[in-house]
């Protein structure tokens, strides 16, 4: 019954969304005055709310079906079972293919609703166009849910128990990772809709760039959190110590992130100087296109096996068709209208525009690199030539030379001026920061004892940029309060805009991230060993003693629990580490649960392999040990970037003026 109501809600939402899009586009056709559009806008907004409400009902219905284990719903029977803890039953709602798409649609409806609620200074007509565009795209995905990927499909006869949620997904991070990622993907739809509405109106004033910025920043921040959580999850759950595998699933989310990063920076130029508008529009369309491509890659099954995709093409082809329809029509619109965009202000090579443009060039290069490495093997396989993959060294060899110059340029960013900057402006703060960076490098090299080129380059670039950014922030803070004598630090900081502080935080996040990556890549150590009970081995600065393995029984799995003692220096016990080898009862799947001890951003990481036969003693196990210095900086860096992105939204300039017309 609940499943039926949920499905009916989805169908109703589809019809209403289609109606809203049709009515919206039809009514604003040729209308350019504000007055008659306001009642229309109110009607469209109410329709958006209705659609959002119906999708919510449907999603809650799905969660309910999972919680009460309604196995007459195929989706529930295949992804949950009676023994699963209730917490994971709820999470299983979006653990499956169908459920995750419903989550996607829910997020989309929520973003549309947020646009409808938000007060920003654009004409009512423009807002109707934005909402209608969003509704139209939503219709496509609702149709996909109803026709090809129904989360409420009826299963008869009803089984007594279900299968299982993939044990890898039974983790707290995996519960919040997909919603964050989707918030990011789908958030770029708002920027996309702004671009489409701008193209439709043929008006490219600075308003749309200005009001695109907060939406883009939030979407980007969510995507950053999503990617960072995914990486953290892979590190903790896959059990093999890696934090980024250049796997197509990961690359699928990295591509829109790179395009989104470029978009944030080109939007800044378009808003402040009116330049690069045509490029910004293209980026806005492309970023969402890449979000859809990411969804297609991960969700169509094309990655698991091109052949599986070819034998069961219904879903994949549907998403691919949607992708082409949305992307194709928006690009055609772009091609038709871009001639009307016109040129903005002129600028010199030393101006801030050039720095931001360089960011775009470097991000595009990174994007091309990832795209080639991800899509080329797929294309080759589809045309039936050969099966291949692109090794990690490809990505690693190209990413450092692309990203490190970007980090260097970021150091100059805050000191630059629009149009043209005298070189003296860069030299003084640059020289100080470079001096500090070289000192830090020297100190770190002396303490560490070893050295590598990548590490040295990474540390110098990151410290250089961080010092330059902080120095600029300090100077700006001091100047901000100079008109008010004896003003406090907090007061002065608050006089600078939140957009500025957001930029500072996000850039510092990049520096933290680069330091983390340089350290881990250079100084991490890894050992596979066979350990007898009582035997001690060394990893990094730590001594690890293997006590033994115990068997434990938990709610839905049994596990071999290894016990390891971690000591350092004079031999006092620092920590007990208890990695597990789990066996899930419903699915008969084995899973390695690593044990990690974090000590000031550095990790000791132990995974249990298999029991090893031994002629001399019983209870030997194969064990993998890692020492990962400063690895946690990678995720802290991501968190800082996301925080920076979020902060910008609360800038005063995005609050509507009291007396202005606010739609």
């Amino acid at each position, binding site marked *: 019954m609940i499943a039926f109501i949920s499905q009916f809600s989805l169908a109703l939402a589809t019809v209403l969304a289609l109606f809203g899009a049709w009515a919206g586009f039809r009514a604003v056709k040729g209308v350019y005055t504000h007055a008659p559009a306001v009642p229309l806008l109110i009607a469209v907004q109410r329709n958006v709310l209705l659609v959002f409400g119906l999708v919510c009902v449907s999603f809650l219905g799905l969660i309910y079906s999972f919680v009460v284990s309604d196995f007459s719903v195929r989706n529930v029977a295949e992804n949950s079972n009676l023994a699963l803890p209730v917490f994971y039953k709820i999470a299983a709602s979006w653990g499956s293919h169908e459920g995750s798409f419903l989550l996607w649609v829910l997020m989309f409806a929520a973003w549309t609703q947020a646009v409808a609620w938000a007060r920003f200074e654009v004409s009512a007509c423009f807002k109707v166009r934005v909402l209608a565009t969003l509704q139209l795209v939503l219709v496509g995905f609702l149709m996909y849910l109803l026709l090809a990927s129904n989360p409420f499909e009826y299963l008869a006869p009803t089984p007594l128990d279900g299968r299982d949620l993939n044990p890898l997904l039974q983790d707290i991070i995996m519960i919040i990772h997909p919603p964050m990622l989707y918030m990011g993907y789908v958030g770029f739809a708002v920027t996309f809709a702004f671009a489409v509405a701008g193209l439709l109106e043929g008006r490219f004033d600075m308003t749309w760039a200005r009001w695109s910025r907060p939406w883009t920043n939030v979407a980007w921040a969510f995507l950053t959190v999503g990617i960072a959580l995914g990486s953290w999850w892979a590190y903790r759950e896959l059990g093999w110590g890696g934090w980024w595998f250049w796997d197509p699933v990961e690359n699928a989310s990295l591509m829109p992130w790179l395009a989104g990063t470029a978009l944030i920076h080109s939007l800044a130029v378009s808003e402040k100087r009116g330049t690069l508008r045509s490029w910004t529009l293209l980026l806005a369309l492309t970023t969402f296109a890449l979000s859809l491509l990411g969804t297609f890659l991960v969700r169509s099954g094309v990655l698991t096996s091109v052949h599986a995709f070819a034998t069961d093409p219904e879903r994949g082809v549907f998403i691919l068709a949607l992708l082409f329809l949305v992307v194709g029509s928006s690009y055609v619109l772009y091609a038709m209208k871009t001639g009307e965009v016109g040129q903005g202000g002129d600028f010199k090579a030393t101006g801030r525009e050039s720095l931001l443009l360089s960011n775009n060039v470097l991000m595009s*290069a990174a994007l091309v690199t990832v795209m080639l490495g991800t899509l*080329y093997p797929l294309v080759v396989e589809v045309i039936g030539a050969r099966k291949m993959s*692109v090794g990690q*060294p490809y990505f690693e060899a190209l990413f450092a030379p692309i990203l490190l110059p970007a980090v260097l340029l970021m150091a100059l960013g805050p000191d630059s001026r629009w149009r043209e900057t005298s070189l003296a402006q860069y030299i003084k703060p640059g020289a100080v920061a470079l001096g500090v960076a070289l000192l830090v490098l020297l100190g770190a090299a002396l303490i560490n004892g070893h050295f590598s080129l990548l590490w040295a380059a990474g540390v110098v670039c990151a410290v250089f940029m961080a010092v330059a950014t902080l120095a600029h922030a300090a100077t700006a803070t001091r100047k901000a309060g100079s008109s008010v004598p004896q003003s406090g630090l907090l007061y002065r900081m608050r006089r600078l805009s939140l957009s500025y502080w957001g930029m500072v935080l996000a850039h510092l996040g990049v520096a933290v991230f680069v330091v983390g990556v340089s350290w881990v890549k250079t100084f991490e150590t890894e050992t*596979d*060993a066979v350990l007898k009970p009582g035997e001690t081995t060394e990893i990094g600065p730590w001594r690890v003693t293997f006590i033994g393995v115990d068997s434990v029984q938990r709610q839905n799995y049994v596990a071999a629990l290894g016990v390891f003692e971690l000591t350092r220096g004079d031999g006092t016990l620092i920590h007990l580490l208890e990695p597990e080898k789990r066996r899930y009862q419903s699915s008969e799947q084995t899973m390695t649960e690593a044990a990690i001890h974090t000590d000031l951003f550095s990790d000791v990481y132990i995974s249990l*392999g298999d029991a090893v036969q031994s002629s001399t003693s019983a209870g030997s196990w194969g064990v*993998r040990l890692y020492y990962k210095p400063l690895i946690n900086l990678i995720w802290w860096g991501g968190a800082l970037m996301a925080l920076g992105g979020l902060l910008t939204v609360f800038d005063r300039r995005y609050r509507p003026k009291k007396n202005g017309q606010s739609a």
Partner: protein
Amino acid sequence: MNKRMSNARAYRAAWLAAIVVVALGFGIALVKVFNENLVFFYTPTQILSGDVPQGEKTYRLGGMVEVGSVQREADSLKVSFVVTDLNNKVPVQFNGILPDLFKEGTGVVADGQWDGTTFVASEVLAKHDEDYMPPGVAQ
């Protein structure tokens, strides 16, 4: 006036040239590194019939782990097993810890080299998806 114009033109040309040089450099590096890191995928039948080009550094073997073929050596992490595509079989040696999804009778992918009689794996891959089947077996 004329001089300023030609100056501006020369300035532009210099920029354009610089951009073209950098883009070309990047393009060449991209293609070179890309080619060096392509890892090709072969089935046991392809390996045994000599389809694998000589001198290919590392490649990827895909197939199914034959039931009953996994043997572990005492006091070490050395493991040997047989990978089959249901037509031909290739013995594989590996020294290390196997991924969770490694199981007899299921699909496996291994990176490594063929020494004429045995495939010496440097890495046995854990796929993200437990339903993964190498194409040679899936067909």
